[in-house]
């Protein structure tokens, strides 16, 4: 068990390194010259050369990468080109804000998706199943920025019941989990929850329907045990699959959504990325993408480890 977990962590290391390489090469892959964003318009060749040396762009790429990696490892992601503040102090609060939003979306979307999927999986072919499936397909297909705007029009503009912008009074520094702040969370969280809920409902339905067709369910029924106990068996068998799908969706939510955060002016990573893209703030882009990718790798690691507790067959594999 422990050796499996250690092995799984060891697998995550090369993936993380690969991610850093991709993030590093972003600057060089992006169209245009990274220098042009920093240089004033009237800069001559001398100044260009100076800046190049100051930013270390004159060194060979592998050396640049290793220097950058060393800085990143100590938490130094460089300075934002726009604000001149350290990238870390921009990315971490944004990631934190996105995490609030992601957690709220998980609390709304996941139980709903799992419940809907399980009910549909128990009534395959019936009208409940067809209703759930069409709701799920609609949820997955609706563009969420459009849904966000519709919700804003209904609940913020027409009803005036919920706020449409920002995180609430005081912003990030004085965030509190009271209604004055939480009411700002409702609309963006619902908007973000729709797609994961649809995806989870569909895969839970497929998994539950598949497991209910397995031979061992016949054995359980032949034993004369109650439906509740059979449901427990089905749930424990479906657990690993649901966990994998839910983990992936959670990681995606943690990555933030550029469109939804922009619609609701939510100061998260998506909002930050959006601004960074339009201002060509490459250090911010690099730092944000790296932090989000590492989140992704980490969540997948956690899911894999959790699965060993649910499925005894994994330990040996």
């Amino acid at each position: 068990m422990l050796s499996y977990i250690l092995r799984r962590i060891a697998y995550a290391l090369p993936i993380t390194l690969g991610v850093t390489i991709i993030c590093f090469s972003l600057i060089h892959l992006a169209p245009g010259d990274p220098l042009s964003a920093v240089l004033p318009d009237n800069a001559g060749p001398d100044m260009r050369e100076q800046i190049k040396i100051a930013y270390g762009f004159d060194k060979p790429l592998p050396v640049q990468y290793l220097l950058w990696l060393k800085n990143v490892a100590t938490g130094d992601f460089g300075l934002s080109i726009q604000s001149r503040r350290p990238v870390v102090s921009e990315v971490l609060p944004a990631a934190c804000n996105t995490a609030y939003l992601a957690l709220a979306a998980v609390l709304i979307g996941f139980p709903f998706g799992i419940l809907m999927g399980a009910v549909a999986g128990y009534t395959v072919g019936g009208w409940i199943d067809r209703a759930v499936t069409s709701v799920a397909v609609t949820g997955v297909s609706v563009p969420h920025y459009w849904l966000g705007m519709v919700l804003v029009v209904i609940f913020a503009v027409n009803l005036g019941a919920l706020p449409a912008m920002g995180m609430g009074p005081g912003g990030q520094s004085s965030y509190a989990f009271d209604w004055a702040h939480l009411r700002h969370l409702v609309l963006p969280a619902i908007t973000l929850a729709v797609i994961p809920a649809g995806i989870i409902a569909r895969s839970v339905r497929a998994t539950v329907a598949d497991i209910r067709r397995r031979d061992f369910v016949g054995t359980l029924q032949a034993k004369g045990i109650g439906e509740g106990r059979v449901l427990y068996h089905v749930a424990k068998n479906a657990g690993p699959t649901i966990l994998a799908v839910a983990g992936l969706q959670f990681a995606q939510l943690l990555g933030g959504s550029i469109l939804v955060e922009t619609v609701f002016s939510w100061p998260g990573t998506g909002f930050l990325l959006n601004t960074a893209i339009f201002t060509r703030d490459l250090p911010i882009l690099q730092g944000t993408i790296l932090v989000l990718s590492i989140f992704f790798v980490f969540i997948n690691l956690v899911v894999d480890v959790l699965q060993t507790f649910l499925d005894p067959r994994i330990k040996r594999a």
Partner: protein
Amino acid sequence: MAVPHPRPDPAADAGPAAAAATAPFVSVRDLTVRFVSRDADVKVINGVSFDVLKGEVLCLLGESGSGKSVTMRTLIRLLPPTARLGGTVTIDGIDVLGLPRNDLKRLRGSLAAMIFQEPMTALDPVFTIGQQIGEALVEQKGMSWADARARALQLLELVQIPSARRRLDNYPHELSGGLRQRAMIALALSLSPKLLLADEPTTALDATVQIQVLLLLRELQKELGMATVFVTHDLGVAAEIADRIGVMYAGRLVELGAVAEIMDAPRHPYTEGLMRSTVHAGMRGKVLDAIPGAPPDLADLPPGCAFAPRCRSVREHCLAVEPAAETVGPGRIVRCLRHGDDPAYAASAPLAIG
């Protein structure tokens, strides 16, 4: 079907338990099973009748799709919701087909328990053997988990699983095929059933393990005195374990009788064909005498006798008239026109089969 079925008289049966029992433990009369879906209505079982006495082993023998498994599963109503059942089934006085869904647990596990063909898929992969044997005891008998575990250990020892205590905490994938099937048997025995249903329990096992599991089953059946319905397509297995054999073809019981009678003097052309097509020593170099053709499509049965297109004794009459079950001896039933007192068979012209 309007044709009255002659009922085998248990008192006249030559079975070993006949003297002790007055009424059959299991009684199946005119059983029909249809699978109905939006675009199909398939009659899988077309009027099957048989009895099983206390302590007796009845083997249902037949090809894939002959309806032997469905017949057995009907005994504990373990069929998909698309199944429509007709006729009567009684086990120990309980009207099985009339039992409300909520009362099925009276039937399942404690009265009748089932052993499945493939223990790898029939056991839940994410629960330990001990949990799977114990949960029926906890759920149905209200035992504590500690008591259930102790009983599960006894059961694993009863089915001769080595180092049983350790096996309690094993998952199915950690056991060999033979041990898994023994665990499956232990599970079936957990509530001390009076009727054991076995659905090809040795088919998925290695040949050497097959005979061990078969001997164990026979030993346990004798020791615990359970009535047993055993489904197989393997004549050797049937000969080994059965007191009586029922041969099934296309959803009908075509021949029923004591094991020696069926083996030595088959009366139905299909049973004759099965006996001829077995492989045994001294056949090297000889061509196997197989039954020509393939079983009919149950959704599109031919008129008359379903076996007629493959039958050596087929006559014109067989294509027109569906044979009824005839009692041709004590406890011996054959469903074939050749044995009826219908003069039309003798009068009609023999046909060649292609």
